[in-house]
C-alpha cells in the first residue's frame, strides 16, 4: 500500500521545477507573456532534452514510457511555473496516436514527437461548445475533412493536429495542409495561445480507434488540466503568503491581521487537500480503468473550481497592485481560467459525475 510518490517521481518533479525556475524566471516569463507567442524554442528544447516531449511514448518509439501519473506530476510543475509552451496539446496528441494509431502510424509520427523535433496538438472543441467525443460532429469524407474546430492550443506552432471526429475517431492533419485555415483566437492565457481551425476538404489521415480511445484521451486531458490547476493554485497561495508577510499597512505586515491570515489559511485549505484527487485520477487512468472516467471528472471539476477561487482571492489580497497588468498574479490567474474552461467547466463535469455514478 503506497499512496505517495516514488523517489524517481519526486526527482522528475524536482528536475522540471529546477529547469523552469532556472530557464524561465519571472522576467523571462513576462517577456513571453507580453509577446503573446506562448512559446520559447529554448524552453521547448530543454523540456524535450529531459524527455518531457515523449514522456508517455513507449521506449521503443523513443519515449520515456511513463504513465499518466508522471505526466500529471510534470503538469503540476508546469502549472507552478506557468510555463509557456506546447506541452499540453503535444502530450494529448501523443496519447491519441499511441491509443488510436496503427503500428505504422505510431512508427511514423511518435519518434519525432517524442524527441520534440516535431510539435503536435489536439483539436477537440467545436463551435457551440461541444468538448466531449460523444458530441464531435466533424466527419471525414474519404481522406478529407471539412468543418470547424476551436480553442486548439498552440495550433500555429504545430506540425501535426490530431482532430476529433464524429464517432470518437481521430484524424491527423499536417501543417500547411491545403484547405486548413488557422486563426488566432486571442486566448486569455498567453502562456498557451489558442486558435480556431477551419478545414475545407483538408487532407487528413484517419487513425483507427473508437470512443474508447477518444474517451481515454479526454480523461487524460481532464487529469492534466487538474494537475496544472493544482500547481497554479498552490503557487498563487505561496505567492500571496509571501506578499502578505512583506506588505505593510498600519505599521505591520498585513499577514498579522486575522482577516488576512484566515483568508490565506482558507486558500491553502481549498488547495492542499485536492492533491490526492489528481494523483488518484492519474493512478486510476494508469492502473484502475473502471475508476478512471469518474475520478478524472472529479479531479477536473473540483480542482479547477477551487483554483479559480484561490486565484480570485490572490488578486484581492494583493490589493490594487493585484489588479494591474504588471502584477504577475494575473499570469497564474489566467492559467487557472484556461484549466477551468478547456474541455468543459465544473458544472459540465459535475453532471457527468452524477451520471457516471448512476445517480
Amino acid at each position, binding site marked *: *500500500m*503506497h*499512496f*505517495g510518490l516514488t523517489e524517481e517521481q519526486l526527482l522528475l518533479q524536482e528536475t522540471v521545477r529546477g529547469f523552469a525556475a532556472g530557464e524561465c524566471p519571472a522576467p523571462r516569463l513576462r517577456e513571453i507573456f507580453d509577446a503573446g507567442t506562448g512559446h520559447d524554442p529554448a524552453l521547448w528544447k530543454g523540456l524535450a532534452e529531459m524527455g518531457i516531449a515523449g514522456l508517455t511514448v513507449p521506449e521503443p518509439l523513443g519515449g520515456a514510457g511513463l504513465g499518466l*501519473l508522471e505526466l500529471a506530476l510534470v503538469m503540476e510543475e508546469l502549472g507552478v511555473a506557468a510555463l509557456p509552451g506546447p506541452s499540453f496539446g503535444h502530450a494529448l496528441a501523443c496519447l491519441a496516436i499511441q491509443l488510436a494509431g496503427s503500428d505504422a502510424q505510431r512508427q511514423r509520427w511518435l519518434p519525432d514527437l517524442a524527441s520534440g523535433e516535431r510539435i503536435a496538438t489536439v483539436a477537440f472543441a467545436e463551435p457551440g461548445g461541444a468538448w466531449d467525443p460523444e458530441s464531435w460532429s466533424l466527419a471525414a469524407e474519404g481522406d478529407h475533412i471539412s468543418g470547424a474546430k476551436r480553442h486548439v492550443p498552440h495550433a500555429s506552432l504545430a506540425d501535426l493536429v490530431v482532430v476529433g471526429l464524429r464517432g470518437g475517431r481521430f484524424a491527423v492533419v499536417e501543417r500547411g495542409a491545403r484547405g486548413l485555415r488557422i486563426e488566432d483566437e486571442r486566448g486569455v492565457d498567453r502562456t498557451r495561445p489558442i486558435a480556431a481551425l477551419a478545414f475545407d476538404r483538408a487532407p487528413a489521415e484517419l487513425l483507427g480507434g473508437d470512443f474508447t480511445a477518444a474517451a481515454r484521451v479526454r480523461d487524460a486531458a481532464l487529469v492534466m488540466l487538474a494537475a496544472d490547476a493544482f500547481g497554479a493554485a498552490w503557487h498563487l497561495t505561496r505567492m500571496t*503568503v509571501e506578499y*502578505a*508577510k512583506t506588505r505593510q499597512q498600519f505599521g*505591520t*505586515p498585513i*499577514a*498579522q*491581521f*486575522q482577516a488576512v*491570515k*484566515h483568508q*490565506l*489559511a*482558507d486558500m*491553502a*485549505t481549498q488547495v*492542499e*487537500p*485536492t*492533491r*490526492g*484527487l489528481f*494523483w*488518484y485520477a492519474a*493512478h486510476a487512468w494508469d*492502473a*484502475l480503468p473502471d475508476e478512471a472516467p469518474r475520478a478524472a471528472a*472529479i479531479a477536473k*471539476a*473540483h480542482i479547477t*473550481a477551487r483554483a479559480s477561487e484561490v486565484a480570485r482571492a490572490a488578486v484581492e489580497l494583493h490589493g490594487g497592485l493585484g489588479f494591474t497588468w504588471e502584477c504577475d498574479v494575473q499570469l497564474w490567474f489566467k492559467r487557472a481560467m484556461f484549466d477551468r474552461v478547456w474541455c468543459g467547466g*465544473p*458544472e459540465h463535469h*459535475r*453532471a457527468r*459525475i*452524477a451520471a457516471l*455514478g448512476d*445517480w
Partner: protein
Amino acid sequence: MDLTYGERYEAFRGELREFLSGWPVRGAEAELPPAEQERIFRKRGIEAGYVYRSIPAEYGGAGRDSDPLIDRIIQEEYLRAGAPGNRLDQGPGLLVPTLLEFGSEEQKRRFVPPTLADEMKWCQGYSEPGSGSDLASLQTTARLEGDHWVINGQKIWTSNARHADYMFGLFRTEPAASKHAGISYLLVPMDAPGIDVRPLKQMTGSMEFNEVFFDDARTPAENIVGRRGEGWAISRATLKHERNLIGNPRLMTGQFDVLLQIARTAVRNGRPAVEDPAVRQRLAEIECYVRACETTNLRMLSASTRGEELSVMLPMMMIKLFSTEVMEQIACAAFDLLGSDGLLEPWAENDSIYDTSATLRGVVHNYMYSLGPAIAGGTSNIQRNIIGERGLGLPRDLRAER
C-alpha cells in the same frame, strides 16, 4: 502507487471478518440487554486481539503489535459489521492515550483497565465560562492541602458529566507562575463532596453538556498526571486525539452515502430528487470534497506506514477544519432535501456525530448538530490560526497575549 493492502494484510482482514461474523451475538446472549451484548463482544474482541490492540495486556488491552494498516483494517471492518470495537468516548479515546504517555505506573494500572472494560466512565474538564479558545487562561484552582488537592471554580461544556465516575481536567495549581506554566492535569472523582453538576440544554433540545461547579472539592494528591505545571503540555496531546476523532474520514463517507440515499427517496416535482439537475450539481460538488478528504487521508495513512509523517504535516493541520466544513455541507444538503419537513423539531435522543440517521428528524437534528464539531476541540477560526501560523509561517496575531 499501489492501493492494495497486500497478501498478509488481506489474510488478516479475512480472519477478522470471520471473527466479526459472530456479531450480532446469538442464542441466549441475544436475550441480554444491548449494552451487555456490546460489553461481551468487545471483551471477545480484546481477547482475539482486535480491540484496544496495541494497549499492553497488563492495562486491559490486547497487547499485540500493530501498525497503521492493521489499525485501518480493524476500523474499516468493525464499521462495516456495525460491531462494538474500540470505544472512542472521553475515557478510552482521550484519557487512556494520555495516561499511557504521561501517567505513572500506578495510575496506568489503576485507571486504564476499568476504563477499557467500561466500568469507569470519564468526562473532560477543560473549558470554563471565561476560557474557551483561550483555554490557558483558565481560573479553576486546585490548592494542595496536606495529601489532597482542594478545587474551586467552574467547568463548562462538560459532556457526560452526569454519568462519569471521574473527570480528567486542567486546574490552576501555581497561581504565581506564568499563564501556561501554572496548570496541572488532575483526575477528580465526580462523587467528591463539593461537586455540583448542572445540565445544559443544547439547541438540538437534548442535554449532553453540563456545567460542573467545584466548592472545596477534593481529590488525592497522587491524582496528578505528570508534574505540577505540566498540565498544559499534557493536554495538547489529548487535544490531538480529539482532533483525530473529529477528522475521521469514514464517518464523512458514511454521511455522504446517507445523503445520496435521501436524495433517491425524497421527491421533487413528482420525481426522485436525485434526478433534479440542481440537486445533482450540489451532490456532485459535495462528493468531490468527500473524495478530497478520503484521498488526503490515504496520503496520511500511506505516509504513516513509511515513517514519512513530515511530508503530510500541512494536511494534518487542515483535516479538522476541512472535514468539519464538508460534514456541515452534507448536513445542510440533507436538510434542504427534506423540504417543508425541515420545519419540524429534531429528534434528539442520541446526540452523536456518529449518528448518520436518515430519519426525517435525524436529518433536522444533524442540521444543527453538525455545527458542534466546528466548535469543539478548537474552533474553526482557531484551526485557521494554526494553519496560518504553523503551516504557512505567517506572523502571530497582533498584540495577543500568549
